[in-house]
Every structure is written in structure tokens, then in C-alpha cells.
């Protein structure tokens, strides 16, 4: 396997809650992205997916584990982070709030260019305005000059999202992390933004890591998918594999409630994701696992393991991996 472009090894991120308890947003995660690959990190709120994205780009320092860029661990110095961010960029979750309301579109997109001195280092000698126009055009906003002087509140949701993508593109990153890129947008423009991400991979060879709760999104654009629950990856593999033949009970349940699914009976889990400061012992999913509740795990003889034995962290290779005692018993 070639060295992945961006990799997370054994990442743990712990927060101290107001009550003094330790909440583990990430509890041991291996994840890797190859050059030009599109990876979807899927999970509900509380799964740790946003924390994972933020840790991958250095906004969050892990309490344990490492993030590696082309095999080299991240340096958290000002210089190191800046070097990282000229190669890896991120589009944050709140598109509307991510643009400074007092800056025009031009200034928002030019910010990165100015911070990294891209005008001086441009091989074709383009001016700042050229670079901004190019970035906006690449993000699908044409003609770009028309938007230079607009303010965020004059833009639609889709346009704001494109401006943010343009701002990230202006730095010519090799990988873009997108946190819920379309969930706050209307359904009818979802397709365009996703098509844009695919086009960026196609035309610029850019990799994309998409963090989302929307399995359909993963089906639309992702090569590989990692399903997260309560700070761990519980299933990962190629999108076709994981979404057509899910093996983890949580993945199966998640898929089953997607209205567009016809090959699975809806399994509505009871309760909600537990507090990350009180992660259940054994398999972290066991209190809500339908297989355990309905006795199927007991029949397979793994019920005790489900309750008591914790599972190892899944490796981040390309194979279809599952963190489940029942699955291990069936396969093994």
C-alpha cells in the first residue's frame, strides 16, 4: 500500500466537561486517505466525526495518537500548521456563519491567497484578482467578477457554500475536508455542490473527505466510507461493500431507516447515542444493538463478549472491516 496522503493513527481526543468528567469525542481511530480519493466519514451527532475532521486539519490537538501528512507527523507550530493548511483545506459546517459579514466575496476568497503569498509565488505571474476570479470560476460561480463586491447576506445558501469552496480552492490544496457540505442547503441544489466536489477530483486530482450523516451522499460521491459511532469507526470499506452489504448492526440500522432503501426492513433503534463521557463497556453499541436485544447474539454465543469485551480499533486499509463480535463469530 502506498503511503496515504493523510492519515490518522490511534487518534484520541478527550474533553473535560463542565461537571469535570472526561468526554471522549474520539476513542481510538485509524483513518487514511489516499491521493485523489474521496472518503466519507458517516455518523450521527455525538459520533465524533466533526472532531475527527478538525483533528485531521490541526484545529484540534489529539490527546493521544498522531495525524500524518504523507507519512510525516504534523507539527503544531505556526509554521507547521501553515504548511499543512496550504495543502489541506476545510470547509466548515456552518456555511452562513463562516463568511465574515463585513467582508466582500472578493476579500473572503483573497484572504487565503494573501496569507500564503500566492501572488508572489504564482508561476504564471497572475494578479490577486486573477487568482480570486479563477477560484470562484472553478467553484462554479460564473462570471466571477459579478460577485466580487457582494456581501454574504446578499448570497443564497448555495452561493455561500461555493464561495467557501472557492476560498479553499484558492490555495490549491491537495485535499479538502467538507463538514456537512449540503445538509443546510435545499435538496434541489444538493446535486450541484456534490457534482462540483466530484469535478474537483476529476480535474484537479484533489482528494475529498466528506463528513456527513447522509448515507445517500456517500453513495453519490464516495470511494470509501467509514461509519462512526461514539468515537470509534465501527465499519469501513468501499462504499459499494459497506452500503450494499453492511455487516455491523449499527450500519444496518442506519441504512434501514433511510427512506430510499428497499432491501432492508426498517430497524428503528431506541434511545439516542449515549453521552461521550459515559461510553458503555464492552462493545460500545451493545445497549442499543438489536442483535443483542433480540437474542441473536446470545444464540451465536457472543452475548457475553458484547457486554464485556471491548473491540480493537479497526485498521485503515482498504478492506471491508467490521468492529463486531457477532460478525467476527460468523466470519471466523
Amino acid at each position, binding site marked *: 500500500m502506498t503511503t496515504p496522503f493523510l492519515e490518522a493513527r490511534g487518534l484520541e481526543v478527550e474533553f473535560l466537561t463542565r461537571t469535570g468528567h472526561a468526554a471522549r469525542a474520539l476513542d481510538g481511530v485509524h483513518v487514511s486517505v489516499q491521493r485523489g480519493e474521496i472518503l466519507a466519514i458517516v455518523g450521527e451527532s455525538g459520533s465524533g466525526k466533526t472532531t475527527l475532521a478538525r483533528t485531521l486539519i490541526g484545529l484540534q490537538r489529539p490527546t493521544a495518537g498522531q495525524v500524518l501528512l504523507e507519512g510525516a507527523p504534523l507539527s503544531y507550530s505556526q509554521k507547521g500548521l501553515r504548511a499543512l493548511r496550504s495543502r489541506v483545506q476545510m470547509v*466548515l459546517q456552518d456555511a452562513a456563519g463562516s463568511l*465574515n459579514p463585513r467582508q*466582500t466575496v472578493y476579500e473572503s476568497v483573497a484572504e*487565503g491567497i494573501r496569507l500564503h503569498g500566492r501572488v508572489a509565488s504564482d508561476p504564471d505571474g497572475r494578479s490577486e484578482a486573477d487568482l480570486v476570479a479563477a477560484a470562484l470560476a472553478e467553484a462554479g460561480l460564473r462570471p466571477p*467578477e459579478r460577485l466580487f463586491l457582494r456581501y454574504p447576506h446578499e448570497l443564497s445558501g448555495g452561493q455561500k457554500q461555493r464561495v467557501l469552496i472557492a476560498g479553499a480552492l484558492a490555495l490549491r490544496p491537495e485535499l479538502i475536508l467538507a463538514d456537512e457540505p449540503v445538509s443546510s442547503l435545499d435538496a434541489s441544489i444538493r446535486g450541484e455542490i456534490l457534482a462540483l466536489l466530484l469535478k474537483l477530483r476529476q480535474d484537479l486530482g484533489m482528494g475529498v473527505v466528506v463528513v456527513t450523516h447522509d448515507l445517500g451522499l456517500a453513495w453519490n460521491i464516495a470511494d470509501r466510507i467509514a461509519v462512526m459511532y461514539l468515537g470509534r469507526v465501527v465499519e469501513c470499506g468501499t462504499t459499494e461493500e459497506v452500503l450494499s452489504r453492511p455487516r455491523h448492526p449499527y450500519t444496518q440500522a442506519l441504512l434501514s431507516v433511510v427512506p430510499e432503501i428497499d432491501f432492508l426492513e426498517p430497524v428503528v433503534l431506541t434511545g439516542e447515542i449515549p453521552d461521550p463521557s459515559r461510553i458503555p463497556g464492552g462493545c460500545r453499541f451493545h445497549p442499543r444493538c438489536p442483535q443483542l436485544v433480540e437474542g441473536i447474539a446470545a444464540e451465536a454465543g457472543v452475548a457475553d463478549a458484547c457486554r464485556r469485551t471491548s473491540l480493537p480499533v479497526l485498521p485503515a486499509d482498504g478492506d471491508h472491516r467490521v468492529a463486531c463480535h457477532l460478525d467476527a463469530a460468523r466470519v471466523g
Partner: protein
Amino acid sequence: MSATSEAPRVTPRQVTRQRRIMGAKRTWASFRRHRSGLFGLGLLTFFLLVAIFAPLLADPESIEVTKATGGVLESPGDYLLGTDENGRSIVALLVWGSRISLFVGILATLISMVIGTLVGLASGFFEGWPARILYRFTEWFLVIPFVPLAIVLATVLGRSLVNIVIVIGITGWASTAMLIRSQTLSIRERPYVERARLLGAGRWHQMSRHVLPNVMPMVFANTTLTVALAILAETTLSFLGLGDPTRVSWGTMLDSAFGVGAMTTGAWWYIVPPGVCVVLVVLAFTLVGQALEEVFNPRLRER
């Protein structure tokens, strides 16, 4: 490639300039809708013009004690508002006094605004003990009663115009600092500040390019109200006899009036005009400041 557009190529500087012009136009249009603010602005302009054109409105010599030409405490007759105990025209005193009152008010506010903004930004933006110390320092200053502190400082520094400005400036910065700190705290958490971080911005860039511009509108509105307070403060200090003895201000006029017993002798022309002037100027600044707050606040709220 991108379609050829009719829009001319725009340089970054043109962009910034255009943005500023459009922003100012919008602010003015919004301000214009507040009638009270316009009234206050009118009053303010009047007093500013009086202060600026003082030499044209009243002969500089007319306020010199040795050159006074009127009788002692004459009631209004030959002189529009009568004379003071030295025979100087009250109108002339008011006109020249406006310079001092406004000058002190504005300059002192500038000082307290600069100190307050720096301290507020720093204590709001940074983490750790330096920020905490600044915060405690601000709180401490806020709690100290103004008049006793001003009296002590003025007595220590001596009675001069500059010292009055300094005294008011360094006793008044704390409330500005608190306001800016709370604004900074909330803006610091906004996604666009984090985006700047993501793009590679250091702390200085985040503060100056993102936090400060979004804090400034509120500061601007608050400043106008602070000038009103500064003018009142100057009047108070002068009235208490701490003002510059060589200059005339509305406060010193009130002090002198009190000193010669104008109340008991019924020389209302000595007391009422300076008092009314102070009230009107303070009112003007307050109305403008309140209107500005309303102009800037809804925009902040709708985000």
C-alpha cells in the same frame, strides 16, 4: 474558461474603497430614519461650529478679565445674556467655554477609547492568566467611584487642561473595555474567525481583520455616549474647582457663579445658560449615540 464579462477588472484597492463608500452610504441612509438622531446631530453640529468659529463670534479679548468692559453682574440688557462678576459678557464666555468643554470631552474620550479597546480586545481574545489579570484590572477600575478618584488624581497632577483630559481619560476606559471584551468573546467563537485560522491566519490577523472590524460598530456608538459622559465629568471637575484656572469652560462658569452667590442674588443669567449648554450638548451626543446603536445593532443581530 471563464466567460468574458462586461465588468471592468477591479483592483483590490478599488474594491476596498468601493466597499467603504457603499457601507458609509448605507449607514447614513439608516441613520437618517431616526429623527431623534438627526436632531441630536443638528444640535451637535451647531455647537461644533460655535466652538470652531469662536474667534469670529466673540472677540478673544472679551473674555480677558483685565479687558472686561461691562458692569459687574449686569442683567441682560446691553449684553445679550448679561455679564459675570468681572464684567465679561456671558455670551462670549459661553462661546469660548464651548471650546474647552468639547475639546476635553472629545480628547478624553479618545484616550479612554484607545485604552479601553486595547484592554478589552486583549482580555477577550487571549486565554490564560494575562487575559484574566487584565479582566480583573478592568473590573477593579470599573468599581472605583469616579469623583473621589478624579479629585485625587487632579490634585496630584495639578490643575491644568491637559491633566483634566488625562484624569477623565484614565478613569473612563473601563466601561468601554467591558463592552468590547464581551463583544470580542462572542465574535471570537464565530465560524468565520475559525475559518481565518484554517486559512493560515495568526492571532494578530484574526484580531485585526476579523474581530476588531466586527466590534468597531458597537464601539463607535458607545464612544458617542462616552463623550457625553466626559463632558459632564469635565463640568463636574471644573465645578469642584479642579479645572484649569486660566481657562473658561461651562463648568468653571458654574463654579464662579456658585462662588459669587449668583443663586442668592438672583443672577440667573450666570447659572442657567452654562447649565443649559451642558445639558444640550450631552443630549445631542446621547441622541446621536443611541441612534447609532440602533443603526449598528440590527445588522449585528440579523447575522
